[in-house]
């Protein structure tokens, strides 16, 4: 029988796929952590003494010597300098990382750094997921339209706008927005997470939070939707339009609307999802600055305060947790990918 049953997705293929992605996930995470270790090990200066000195010698600083001792030990271990041999210090470092034990934060001693980060996380995640979803959807829609009408005036205008916005980093867009909304049309609040202090989450508080998040979100959405996702969606649309299967769909007399939905959009979604996964890493870093500029109380703002007070415990916590977050996002998208692309599903 020349049937094609042989190439049906078998359970084993599925298990193999999941196994290989999981292996990759664990391996990259492990390698990333190790790279961090190697980086600090290779640094020509004694990071810890340098930091401790910087802190204790600051003007007017009075610290509990016990706290400083504790901090010193934490830092030594976190920077892979604890223990005797390199192997030993590496193991100590790994234990710290994988038990999420980053020691006490310095800015609000003795709260553990981990707790501090976890407390800020909902703010960042809330801002990022919303703006990323909006950005991605908008970028794809506009990109497909611009790609389809690439020779028309509308498409050309959009292309010009995109070329200008694409290379501009998020934080510059944030500054531009502030300049515009502080001086030209002062309608949005310029910073902060909320202006209502309340213990409970009332409707008023929620609306206030959204109102305050609008400008930061806008500064993420504009360059993303009109730059990054827009340009790739537009390029992919033009490529898909010149594919044999799209041409053949036109030859078969299928209506253009149907072709855009079933042929163009469906096919560009596959690579665009990869873009989404890749951009998660970039946005995480970009959002840090957005938060700083808008004084938005997320993880980025925390990292900013930690940097200024030399709170490396907290910084390490942010670094390692965001590695985990990005790796997990990529992993989850990897697992969802076969649902989008039948070619992978059946490999």
């Amino acid at each position, binding site marked *: 029988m*020349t049937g094609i049953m*042989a*190439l049906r997705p078998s359970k084993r293929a599925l298990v*193999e*796929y999941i*196994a*290989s992605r999981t292996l990759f996930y664990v391996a990259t995470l492990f390698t990333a952590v190790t790279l961090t270790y190697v980086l600090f090990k290779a640094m020509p200066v004694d990071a810890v003494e340098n930091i401790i000195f910087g802190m204790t010698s600051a003007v007017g600083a009075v610290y509990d010597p016990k706290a400083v001792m504790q901090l010193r030990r934490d830092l030594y271990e976190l920077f892979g300098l604890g223990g005797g041999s390199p192997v030993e210090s590496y193991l100590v470092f790994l234990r710290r990382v994988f038990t999420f034990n980053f020691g006490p934060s310095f800015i609000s001693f003795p709260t553990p750094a981990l707790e501090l980060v976890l407390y800020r996380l909902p703010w960042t995640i809330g801002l990022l997921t919303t703006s990323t979803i909006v950005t991605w959807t908008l970028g794809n829609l506009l990109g497909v339209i611009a790609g389809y009408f690439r020779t028309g005036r509308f498409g050309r205008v959009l292309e010009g706008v995109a070329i200008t916005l694409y290379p501009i980093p998020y934080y510059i867009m944030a500054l531009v927005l502030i300049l515009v909304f502080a001086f030209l049309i002062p309608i949005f609040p310029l910073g902060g997470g909320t202006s209502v202090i309340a213990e409970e989450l009332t409707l008023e508080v929620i609306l206030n939070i959204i109102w305050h998040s609008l400008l930061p979100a806008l500064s993420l959405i504009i360059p993303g939707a009109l730059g990054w996702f827009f340009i790739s969606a537009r390029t992919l649309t033009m490529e898909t339009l010149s594919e044999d299967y799209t041409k053949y769909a036109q030859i078969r007399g299928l209506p253009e609307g149907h072709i855009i939905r079933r042929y163009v959009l469906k096919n560009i979604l596959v690579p665009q999802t990869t873009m989404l996964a890749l951009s998660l890493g970039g946005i995480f870093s970009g959002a840090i600055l957005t938060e700083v500029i808008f004084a938005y109380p997320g993880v980025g703002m925390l990292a900013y305060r930690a940097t200024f007070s030399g709170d490396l415990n907290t910084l390490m916590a942010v670094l390692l947790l965001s590695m985990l977050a990005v790796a997990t996002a990529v992993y989850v998208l990897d697992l969802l990918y076969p649902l989008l692309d039948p070619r992978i599903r059946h*490999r």
Partner: protein
Amino acid sequence: MSGEFLLEVKDVSKIFGYGFLGRVKFPAVDHVSFSMEDEPKILTIAGESGCGKTTLSRIILGMLEPSGGVVLYKGRNVHAPKSGDKAWFSKQVQAIFQDPYDTFNPLKKTETYLYETARNLLRLKDYKEASKRIDEPLNFIGLSLDDVKNKYPNEFSGGELQRISIARALMPEPKLMVADEPVSMVDASLRMNILNMFKDLKEKGGISFVYITHDLATAYYISDEIAVMYRGVIVEMGPAEDVLIGKHHPYTKGLVEALPEYSKREEWLRKRAKPPGMEVKEFLTPYCKYSDICPNRMEKCVTERPPIYNVDKVKVACWLYDGYPVETLQE
């Protein structure tokens, strides 16, 4: 000992791994053996796309390591050259490829490759001397250095590029030419000129050819011997006449009968063959790879791989010839 052979391919396999951790082993060339005597001959390796013939040609040229087996050129191992052998091989064995538009780097002038060949293989350092030497093969293919000079590949037609490619390959006066689908992208009206040129080079120039093609009609036209490949295996091999007219293997028979020719119009329109199955699956088959669609399938075909039988002048790998003397690999 094997001095009387020009080329010996002994039990050569090439396995590509893919899938999860490369676990699926894909035998693109599966235990292939043949030899060419040291006298001018044209040997055709025929088969459909994806039968492993191009992989085999790359192995013969020494550009791809086989996973198993050896290739000997005049008794010397192509893949384990002794000092000096490498330069000698590239003078002795040359090649022509399928796509004339890709044979030369589109960003470079076409004559560069002629001068490189003169400098590297013929050790002609002097520009004038090299130019003179380059002109000879170009004249043979009906061009001159002046026609070729200072032009990029896109300034030539496909037919011209293919002829320049031949001229380049002829420069070191090779003894063996590997031609991988050399006319499949050349227009029909020019095709015969190139094939006639091969015939000429064999008869007057004493050059042997390994002609790799999917086109049995041109294969019949120029070759002395022919080997038919299916999914990495040579299924039938022997003098061209005996193979293509004798049609011992069911696959050869199927191929020949599917050739569209005006004189066979009525039979051609009546014939209902079974289509080949999924390529990957057939490559991985441990028994006879043709058994899936073979009209003569027997029980044995799906349990054991057939040995190679000597049927008159032809070697056939098919259970239909059970009882004929079995070919054994000589050491």
